[in-house]
């Protein structure tokens, strides 16, 4: 068994920590084996001509994504980002400063793609791509959760996550992939979800939930699977079927649909909201995963597509589904056009479950008894991909307001965590972007430090005992790390878990 992992001490004054060069140099996520790599079309192991192929791939990415070239060129090393990363704060490894992490790739870009770098590499911080550099990429680009907090503080607006994604894509293209992400992508293609939960197991689980809800509430709340002609197709992370506290939010969604009289269905083929293609920066994987959802939507003839509590799923849905699949305007292949015709455009396509629930609350179409959550003193953790890469509703900042509005409509006690740690400046949970794996637990614990510090403060000052969030990764990460910081693991839960407690099922 691994050595005991302990929480770092809270900082007394949250300033730039003392540097510990190389502190995380040995922390390396498991590398994908040949079977995992080849199942999703990557070379099974590091190819012999990795150097040339990596540089070629970098050139292709630079040609395809102008943003990447701009981001690699624009940085002036002002340092504004350096202390904004939760992994740097928690690990003190200077290579986890966002600027330094980017420079691992930028230095190689300069050497091969800029004139000064080709002529006078030493003068401009350019370096050759060596095996050591490649290993360093793997180590440190899998210590970034692509949460983009640092980007908020960058005066040039450099999207550092895009640089991480490009590095991971280059690594995958030469046969140097990460086990956790790539194994999961293989499972989505083969089975339909990240968990590898086959249809019959999903059906059995949902049946059990119907019994549970009936027993607890007396109402026949349904959890429909593969129902043709349903109004709504719900796309949610597969963790919602499997893990705690995730499943409590799934019960919440079902109760909302029940109370509002909306017919809905889950799909066994597209039983996954998550899309790890985003995490590894691979467009083809991202599209292939998203297309399962279109296939299900067309098969069932649904009018609306609603996304459950999953941070990066909502980013992909909100920002990319339109051009990837035709859910939302943008794509123009025949299936996309067919789907456009099928969907009901009086509703947002896609719609977040929080948008759906909040709209019902505003129209008094559902009733909530706040007292049902009186045992909870609640705070809200904004999940990075919702906060910084998407929107909800029709107003600026709707992605911040709507989940909070739902909480305050469902409960009496709500307190914000400290300024500069919520909304667009929210800290990552420490487990996002393909890092939610046991082999990176030490990194995850350290990366959670800034969030835990402010949580401790609201716990001390206001007695907060429940942190709501709308992301499966955040829920799983906090369940794991909260006890290491001395909190109860059950302190984290979903927004729809609170809705589930408060919603009245009978009178609407």
């Amino acid at each position, binding site marked *: *068994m691994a050595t005991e992992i302990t929480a770092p001490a809270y900082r007394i004054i949250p300033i730039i920590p003392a540097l510990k060069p190389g502190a995380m140099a040995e922390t390396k996520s498991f590398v994908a084996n040949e079977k995992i790599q080849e199942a999703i079309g990557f070379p099974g192991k590091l190819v012999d001509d990795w150097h040339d192929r990596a540089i070629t791939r970098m050139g292709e990415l630079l040609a395809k994504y102008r943003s990447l070239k701009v981001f690699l060129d624009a940085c002036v090393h002002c340092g504004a980002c350096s202390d904004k990363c939760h992994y740097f704060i928690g690990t003190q490894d200077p290579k986890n400063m966002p600027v330094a992490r980017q420079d691992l790739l930028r230095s190689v870009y300069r050497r091969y793609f800029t004139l000064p770098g080709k002529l006078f590499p030493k003068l401009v911080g350019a370096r050759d791509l060596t095996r050591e550099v490649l290993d360093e990429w793997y180590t440190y680009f899998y210590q970034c959760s692509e949460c983009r907090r640092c980007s908020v503080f960058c005066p040039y607006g450099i999207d550092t996550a895009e640089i991480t994604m490009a590095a991971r894509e280059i690594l995958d293209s030469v046969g140097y992939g990460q086990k956790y992400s790539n194994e999961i992508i293989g499972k989505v293609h083969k089975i339909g979800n990240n968990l590898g939960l086959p249809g019959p*197991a999903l059906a059995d689980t949902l049946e059990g939930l119907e019994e549970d809800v009936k027993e607890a509430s007396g109402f026949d709340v349904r959890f429909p699977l593969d129902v043709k002609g349903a109004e709504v197709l719900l796309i949610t992370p597969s963790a919602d079927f*499997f893990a705690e506290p995730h499943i409590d939010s799934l019960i919440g969604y079902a109760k909302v649909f029940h109370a509002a009289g909306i017919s809905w269905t889950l799909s066994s083929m597209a039983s996954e909201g998550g899309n790890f293609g985003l995490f590894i920066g691979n467009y083809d994987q991202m599209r292939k995963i998203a297309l399962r959802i279109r296939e299900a939507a067309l098969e069932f003839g649904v009018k609306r597509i609603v996304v459950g509590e999953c941070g990066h799923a909502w980013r992909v849905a909100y920002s990319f589904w339109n051009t990837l699949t035709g859910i939302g305007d943008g794509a123009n292949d025949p299936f996309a056009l067919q789907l456009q015709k099928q969907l009901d455009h009086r509703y947002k396509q896609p719609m977040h479950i929080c948008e759906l629930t909040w709209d019902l609350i505003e129209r008094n179409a559902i009733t909530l008894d706040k007292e049902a959550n009186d045992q909870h003193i609640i705070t809200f953790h904004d999940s990075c991909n919702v906060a910084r890469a998407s929107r909800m509703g029709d107003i600026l900042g709707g992605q911040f307001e709507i989940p909070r509005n739902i909480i305050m409509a469902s409960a009496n006690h709500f307190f914000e965590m400290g300024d500069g740690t919520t909304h667009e400046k929210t800290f990552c949970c420490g487990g996002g972007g393909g890092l939610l794996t046991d082999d990176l637990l030490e990194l995850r614990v350290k990366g959670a430090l800034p969030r835990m510090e402010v949580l401790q403060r609201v716990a001390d000052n206001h007695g907060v005992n429940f942190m709501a969030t709308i992301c499966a990764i955040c829920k799983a990460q906090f369940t794991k790390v909260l006890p290491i910081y001395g909190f109860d693991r059950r302190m984290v839960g979903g927004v729809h878990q609170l809705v589930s407690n408060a919603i009245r099922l009978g009178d609407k």
Partner: protein
Amino acid sequence: MSSIEVNGKNYETDEEGYLTNLADWNLDVANYIAQAENLKLTDQHWEVVNFLREYYEEYQIAPAVRVLTKAIGKKFGPEKGNSQYLYELFPYGPGKQACKIAGLPKPTGCI
């Protein structure tokens, strides 16, 4: 590939010590894996481990935590039908640690 040696026989595992082949599992292997996790298997552990294997055989996946707690509660008494009880038995998390001892593949995803 990694492996473990139990009673003079080698069993292939992944990097984290999960058995590669489901069929390799036996009582000694389970005890060996548990020991490496600092656990001594009691009857209560076995109730869970055996249920996991039965469920896996039918569905090709470990049960959801809720399915597991419910089944254990029904079979062995309501005081055992909650996740707190399972966490006490398997402190690293019933989902993963119990699966490892039961010789099942590690559940993946956002869990």
